[in-house]
């Protein structure tokens, strides 16, 4: 049994799905008291809901400063929560913003940090984290050395979210020492692009990705239609993002994002090694490609050799028909 602290990410006070998954993981794996830390505007609203997830103590910092700076003020708050809770293991969602926060906290506390974990096992007071390395070619199990705190970034959907029920947690307001002004990076503006209604690629259980085979930027309309009918996110190959057909934040692969959804659908993507490095640990892979020799078929659970412009619209219609 070990004390664990979960960094709970929230959307205006509503704990995000990944946070609920991490709280389940904390209960199941660590078996000890689960503490949580919630930061930024709305933190207190969020904190009050965490009793249902078995949290005993919530550290909050419901301050505007947390949101005004991109990383450094949250780092100070996370460090304060780790020290106050005495937790040995800290779980955080493996998202780029929070990974920066945890990275700085690890240096400040002399803690070990492991990112992108997809599995956790308890080992004495610490945990052993499982993660894919070398673009999914290998799996590694890592932990911390010695008695230091352990920060583990956990990927979305690695665990199921379940509620456990429990008493209202004790709320502790953090008193956060702010870092010097010179060391802070300030948020000036948050810009949301179109398509914000779809799930995020790194959190989606289904991703429909498009490549050069779409032929033109408008081809992504087809990818979006299939994604919407499956309730999935939209991904892209580098050929497609390079051509300006879709924004780079949707790129999957070596120089883009690593994803491992339950279902990956590849449309007009050849499956170059740099693309596979970002998706080959997906649970189920299906593809449509007109070239039977395309390397993507060698890792696909199901493949259609055919023209995506003919197959995909009919697939969308077929899905609608079966659901009706």
């Amino acid at each position, binding site marked *: 049994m070990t004390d664990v602290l979960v960094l709970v990410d929230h959307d205006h006070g509503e704990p995000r799905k990944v946070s609920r998954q991490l709280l389940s993981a904390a209960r199941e794996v660590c078996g000890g008291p689960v503490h949580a830390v919630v930061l930024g505007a709305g933190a207190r609203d969020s904190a009050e809901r965490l009793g249902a997830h078995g949290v005993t103590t919530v550290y909050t910092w419901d301050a505007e400063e947390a949101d005004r700076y991109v990383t450094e003020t949250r780092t100070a708050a996370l460090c304060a929560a780790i020290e106050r809770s005495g937790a040995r293991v800290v779980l955080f969602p493996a998202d780029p913003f929070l990974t920066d926060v945890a990275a700085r906290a690890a240096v400040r506390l002399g803690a070990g940090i492991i990112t992108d974990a997809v599995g956790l096992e308890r080992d004495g007071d610490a945990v052993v984290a499982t993660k894919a390395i070398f673009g999914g070619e290998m799996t590694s199990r890592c932990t911390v050395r010695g008695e230091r705190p352990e920060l583990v970034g956990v990927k979305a959907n690695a665990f199921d979210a379940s509620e456990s029920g429990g008493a209202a947690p004790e709320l502790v307001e953090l008193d956060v020492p702010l870092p010097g002004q010179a060391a802070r990076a300030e948020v000036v503006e948050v810009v949301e692009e179109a398509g914000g209604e779809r799930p995020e690629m790194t959190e989606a259980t289904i991703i429909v990705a498009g490549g050069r085979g779409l032929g033109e930027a408008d081809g992504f309309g087809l990818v979006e239609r299939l994604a919407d009918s499956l309730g999935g996110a939209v991904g892209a190959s580098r050929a497609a993002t390079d051509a300006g057909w879709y924004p*780079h934040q949707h790129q999957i692969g070596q120089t883009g994002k690593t994803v491992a959804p339950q279902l990956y659908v590849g449309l007009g993507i050849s499956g170059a090694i740099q693309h596979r490095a970002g998706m080959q*640990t997906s649970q189920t892979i299906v593809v449509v490609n007109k070239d039977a020799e395309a390397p993507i078929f060698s890792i696909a659970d*199901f493949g259609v050799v055919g023209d995506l412009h003919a197959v995909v619209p009919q697939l969308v219609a077929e899905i609608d028909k079966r659901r009706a």
Partner: protein
Amino acid sequence: MRIICPVKRVPDTAAAKVLRPEDHTLDRDAGEAVLNANDEWAIEEAMRVKERDGAEVVALCVGPQQAQTTVRKALSYGLDAAIQVTDPALHGSDAAAVARVLAGALAAEDFDLVLMGNQSSDARTMLVPAMLAEFLDLPALTYAKRLDIDGRTLTVHRESSGGHVVVRADMPAVVSVVEAINEPRYPSFKGIMAAKRKPLDTRDLAAVGVGADEVGLAHSWTRVVDVSPRPTRQAGETVTDDGSGTVGAVALADFLSARKFI
């Protein structure tokens, strides 16, 4: 202005990876090695600042002796000089240990800006930029898809899942970049020839003020328990469409229904 570009030598993605069974570290002599792709965007961005505003640009690499070829490659893009930190004690260092060594080397340098890639293709921890900034007590503007410099003020468009966040800080600062920031140039023949004669300063750990007991396999804060190859994926069923789209669509829908995705 003086810009430092940390650059990493990584195995080529297509190269076979061989791990040393005794300590799970990568055998870095086993396959083809290259300059980490994301670092090329950082170098390009530094070169653009140099060409626009004037700057001295210096590459900084932590790695084995053989990484010298990576450093020369970085120089071939037109950088002015390079520093390589190499020491047998570095073997098996984790992200924090590497960041500590980079910070040690930077502590002795004058610099305004550290420009680096947001991820290395092998370790891919995405930790080093933020950790380096923390060791140096500097702001970090990471995942930049656009960088503007106005006097001493840096403004970055930080890529986010929904679009971007505009983030600002004053120099000195650490900036990490994503692929979308620019289109890197190819080294010119002249650049490649000149790279051979550019100053390359090689330092050991003591020279950058880091103890052998702070880095390497035995002293890193994290530890690899074991590594195993992922079971290779088997190609599944394929269906060839007849050109109408119907055959493919129905077969795919059947598969998705059977797997409960529909």
